[in-house]
């Protein structure tokens, strides 16, 4: 089978990494995954405009359909005009040559929903934006999928898209860790989830050791973002972070994420409130268990059990004083918890590998 993805060709974006993995696994399984885009010298992606041989075109939709990633500076270079910068001629060809039943939409950010506001987070600015996105998706395909086990709309089906690669796994060794706790990720609506973790470490701050946040917009809210989005999406409390001695580090390249996670005993797995509400998974969902660390899940036990297996529920962050005790116990006995992580890894390898995902996707295409 030959699958063509339509997505921004940004090497370091989460979904782009997933597509590269799909391409790798597809090759091993005798299939082919390419990007539908003009050939780009130096690109990590295999690009093709040969629609005739495609069994399906997979649209990976996230929030940023209307803007060139990184601004207009890539326009005319990597990106042309039109959908995902593929050029309007190629957009026209796509819709004239690939029938509706061979198009699949992966709605990664839960935007194919009514406008939702939850915990200060939201999927659309207003109902009109939601209507436009729904109308767009409906006009493209009947096959609409979201990476959640519980889509809200009856016509949306579950396809988790993001996946786990056992090759990412680092040995679970807990001697000489530089940090007690580290979180790698940008702020973007995650303050509340992070704050819950930080509150839990406050009473045991000395025992935790060094703790760090790696990513954008933790040191300050970006002044150039207009209120109220600035306060909603980027709220941070740098004084508080300083007071409890949280080190703030610059963002790191994608290939350094798992090794850097491995420099700490604990890594919280945080999801923005909207994603929590919708039960969405992200690429990060599957990265943390592969690192040499103990993941601490900030989601509810049902979600954690469904994704990571039943054993993982004991790594769900507890509430109040119990959370502090739980963290302290992980710090004291990491090797004990490493056994749970091994079970999680086994579960993820069996249920959520890219090979499993690709088979699921081909099943969807073949329907």
């Amino acid at each position, binding site marked *: 089978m030959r699958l063509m993805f339509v997505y921004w060709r940004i090497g370091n974006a989460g979904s782009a990494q997933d597509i590269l993995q799909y391409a790798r696994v597809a090759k091993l399984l005798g299939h082919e995954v390419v990007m539908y885009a003009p050939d780009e010298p130096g690109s990590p992606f295999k690009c093709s405009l040969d629609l005739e041989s495609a069994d399906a075109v997979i649209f990976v939709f996230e929030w940023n*359909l*209307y*803007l*060139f990633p990184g601004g207009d500076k890539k326009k005319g270079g990597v990106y042309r*005009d*039109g*959908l*995902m*910068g593929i050029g*309007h*001629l190629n*957009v*026209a*060809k796509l*819709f*004239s*040559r690939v029938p509706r039943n061979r198009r699949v939409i992966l709605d990664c950010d839960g935007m194919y929903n009514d406008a939702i506001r939850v915990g200060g987070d939201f999927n659309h600015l207003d109902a009109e934006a939601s209507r436009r996105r729904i*109308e*767009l998706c409906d*006009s*493209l395909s009947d096959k609409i999928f979201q990476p959640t086990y519980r889509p809200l709309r009856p016509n949306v089906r579950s396809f988790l898209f993001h996946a786990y690669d056992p090759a990412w796994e680092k040995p679970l060794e807990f001697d000489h860790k530089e940090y007690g706790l580290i979180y790698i990720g940008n702020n973007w609506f995650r303050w509340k989830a992070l704050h819950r973790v930080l509150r839990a470490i406050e009473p045991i701050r000395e025992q935790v050791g060094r703790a760090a946040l790696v990513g954008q917009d933790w040191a300050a809210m970006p002044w150039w973002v207009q209120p109220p989005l600035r306060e909603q999406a980027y709220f941070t409390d740098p004084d508080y972070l300083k007071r409890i001695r949280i080190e703030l580090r610059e963002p790191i390249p994608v290939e350094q994420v798992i090794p850097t996670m491995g420099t700490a005993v604990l890594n919280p797995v945080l999801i923005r409130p909207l994603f929590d509400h919708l039960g969405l998974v992200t690429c990060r969902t599957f990265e943390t268990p592969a690192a040499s660390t103990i993941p601490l899940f900030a989601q509810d036990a049902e979600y954690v059990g469904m994704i990571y297996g039943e054993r993982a529920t004991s790594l769900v962050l507890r509430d109040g004083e119990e959370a502090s005790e739980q963290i302290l116990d992980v710090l004291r006995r990491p090797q004990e918890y490493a056994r749970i992580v091994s079970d999680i890894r086994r579960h993820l390898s069996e249920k959520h590998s890219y090979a499993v995902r690709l088979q699921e996707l081909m099943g969807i295409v073949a329907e």
Partner: protein
Amino acid sequence: MRLMFIHHVLEDRGSAQDMLRYARVAQSMGHEVVLFGSPESPSAFQYTTDVSSADAAIFIFEFTTELQYGDLLAWTRLLSQIPRSRRVVIDCDGKYNDAIQITGDMNHASTDLSRQWLEICDSISDTILQPTYHPVRSNVKSFFFHGYDPSWEVPLDFDHKKFGMVYVGNNWFRWRSLCGVLGILEPVLQRVGRIAIVGNGWDRPAPWAKPILPEDAYYTDPEYLRRLGVEVLPPIHFEEVIGWMSRGLFSPVIYRPLFDHLSLVTCRSFETPAANTIPLLCQEQQFVSDVYGAAGLELVLPRERPEDKILDLFERPQHYMNVVRELRHVLNQRYSYAVRIRELVQIVGD
């Protein structure tokens, strides 16, 4: 029916007049014509990006297939929300052809660009229309997009004309044609009187004059114009075109060589007869007969002794006034916007 026109409109050229007329006449017929887009500044046209409300999409391509307005998803919305069977391409400038080079003019700079143009049109629709009775490609049908509006008609009164000749148009591959007319006027300049040319690129390089374009696209000879005493005036808004033509006893209808070759009509083909002037048709007899009928033949600039024709316009204006009246009648019957809209609605509905 709600027809959504997708067109790159420049208000001082091309089909701006057509856009406005289609919208007005459609409304009077119980239909609606809207333009796709959302310009930042106020416009005479009714724009919308509400694709879902359109019954059909009419892609009107002249010099580009790029959208004038629209975000990154504009093409996606247009092509996914309006079914292929409800999409039509009107290829006004004969670019839906192999690359053609003719008398310094061309439709594409390369075969690659021609191929791309064909590809995008074919991707949009099976219905490709050109404003010619003689499309070159077998899958192209005739549709005279440009129309005639009897409400444009200025009462014919050839007394007290300020100018003998007025030509309104920009210099886009038109120097050869205009120069041909001026050459004919040279021996009879005294009789013709004042001559005016209104538009871009005649007494100085046009704004689009760039070395990457063929020289014929913008070539002009300001010195020659000065020697003949031709008055060159800046370009005007499309709503002033007929008024300006009406200042001359006659107004030549000239095309760029490519359009002559492909027998394409333009908006000017129908505007000039509505002005208070004698349209001097500078095309082949066959083309004139096809487009304007027998009345038009009387207004053709002949190959043999053309200067006699010019003099005759001045000698017998009353005769030519009657010819123009008859011509207007023919145009009203054949090319009114109401006829065009009925035809378009039928094409879309087929």
